[in-house]
């Protein structure tokens, strides 16, 4: 680990991606993530990096460039914000179907439609329930801090490689725009990366049969077989890759459930509630898919109430209800429009509910 440096969220993720071994970036400017694209525009051509930066003509083109570069099995990445991520859904479905390792960043802003450019968490459904067509999943990480975002960026490339799957870092606009000190890990050694030469498109050199990469199979039995393979992969991911944080939950009567920067704010709320003598903890999913249902369900046996807080009209709360499964009440508080609720605001809502 190097020394701590002050970094902006979008730029920290970009630098982490470069250090994780990404040398192919295709993107399209959109607020509030354009600094990530701009950082890559500066960084990729540097001599010691010698990577590819290309500004596409649209998010539609960008995601298809990711598809193409992904077909070669090299580490690829794009970043966007909500309206742009909607445009990428077609490509995401193809990428999931063709099983191409790739990393996406969605710095979420207020929606729907053009919405605004303030922070939001209103793309949770799209990210975790499949925004494109067909039965597919993305691995979705929701970091709460820049340090965690940096570490999850590294992890995203490894998971993408390990499972041949697209991975999404779902960062709200707050995380993208904030500045705080981070420590960057050392550069990955490309020799340590997964060997994709068995399936990737790199030219046959007349030494092997052609590698065909696609999500296409006109034979229903063949396509179902492919779907079984996807589902088996997703089952393994559910089994092995769930991440979450429990904060002061051991003795908690009340559990606030929140992810991303809201998870961080929830911790302040829990601390303040404890100062008032209310035993409160926080459950923070880090993987939004796979959602940590079972660990959350366990808390339902000993806690009295769950309180989901989001910068949305209520999306993740549906997964909380699935996990709690009617055992205890699940309450919700959310702000929309790109408004970040303050700890005091959440606390007073919380006090009303208990």
């Amino acid at each position, binding site marked *: 680990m190097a020394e701590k440096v002050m970094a902006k969220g979008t730029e920290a993720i970009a630098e982490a991606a470069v250090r994780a071994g990404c040398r192919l970036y*295709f993107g399209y400017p959109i607020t509030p993530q354009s600094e990530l694209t701009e950082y890559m525009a500066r960084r990729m051509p540097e001599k010691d990096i010698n990577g590819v930066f*290309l500004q596409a003509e649209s998010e*539609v083109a960008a995601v*298809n460039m990711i598809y*193409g570069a992904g077909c070669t099995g090299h580490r*690829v990445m794009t970043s966007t914000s909500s309206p742009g991520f909607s445009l990428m859904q*077609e490509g995401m479905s193809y990428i999931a179907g063709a099983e191409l390792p790739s990393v996406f960043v969605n710095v979420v802003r207020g929606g729907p439609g053009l919405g605004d450019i303030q922070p939001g968490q209103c793309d949770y459904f799209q990210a975790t329930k499949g925004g494109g067509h067909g039965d597919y999943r993305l691995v979705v990480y929701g970091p709460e801090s820049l340090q965690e975002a940096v570490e999850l960026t590294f992890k995203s490339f490894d998971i993408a490689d390990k499972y041949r799957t697209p991975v999404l870092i779902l960062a709200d606009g707050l995380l993208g725009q904030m500045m705080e000190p981070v420590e960057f890990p050392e550069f990955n050694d490309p020799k340590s990366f997964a060997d994709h030469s068995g399936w990737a*498109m790199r030219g*046959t050199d007349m030494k092997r049969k052609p590698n065909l990469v*696609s999500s296409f199979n006109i034979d229903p039995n063949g396509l179902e077989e492919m779907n079984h393979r996807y589902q088996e992969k997703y089952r393994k991911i559910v089994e092995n890759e769930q991440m979450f944080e429990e904060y002061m939950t051991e003795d908690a009567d009340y559990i606030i459930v929140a992810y991303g920067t809201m998870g961080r704010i929830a911790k302040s709320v829990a601390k303040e509630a404890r100062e008032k003598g209310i035993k409160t903890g926080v459950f923070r999913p880090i993987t939004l898919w796979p959602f940590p249902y079972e660990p959350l369900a366990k808390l339902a046996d000993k806690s009295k109430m769950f309180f989901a807080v989001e910068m949305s009209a209520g999306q993740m709360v549906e997964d909380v209800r699935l996990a709690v499964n009617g055992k205890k009440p699940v309450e919700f508080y959310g702000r929309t429009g790109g408004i970040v609720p303050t700890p005091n605001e959440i606390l007073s809502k919380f006090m009303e509910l208990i």
Partner: protein
Amino acid sequence: MPYIDKMKGPHALSGKEFTYCPGCHHGIIHRLVAEVIDELGIEGQTMMVAPVGCSVFAYEFFNVDGTVAAHGRAPAVATGIKRAMPDKVVFTYQGDGDLAAIGTAEIIHAANRGEKLTSIFVNNAIYGMTGGQMAPTTLVGMKTTTSPYGRKIENEGQPIHVAEVIKELRGVAYLERTKVDTPQDVIKTKAAIKKAFMAQINGLGFGMVEILSTCPTNWGLSPVESLKWLEENMVPEFPLGVFVDKVGDAK
């Protein structure tokens, strides 16, 4: 009897039977691309991107690494491949629905950037796979399943002339419109395809050949009648010729 092969299917084809209707020109064009790959000795370095449309299976017909893009996105996919592996040869194979309707943004920007790609553009003035609907290149008055009374200028506008649009873009290194309805035209088209590949191999920029071809099934004509229809109707609308040539004559 000591006979030797004079003309034989190229090595760069996988040998799998084409899925096209009888008389469809896709098969001729596939063979020409494969012959060019053979002659340039680039089979092991070449990768292709198939479109959505009748040639959606095209990546199974060649002896090269391949994929199939979302409808219209082949030039963006090919860009991603080429940028990742700039020493390789990458081509897209696209029909008029794919390239000239849903994929206009992708083809224009790939051409404009001067991507070192080759695009084989097959123009038969109709959507084949979906069942004979109107394409952007459908002729005025031509009846299709979605222009049952004939294409009308007031309603659908006039056929798009792709080569004439692309020729204005400065990243283009080779651009020609040909046809494949006679053996002589087949020979000319092969030469054009070769130059469109040379454009990327020599690092000059984007190469494209627009090839007028038939769709006997959806035109409602026999394969042989279709040749005449192409000659009499498509050629006057889509003039043949070389639009851009920065490749020059082969040594």
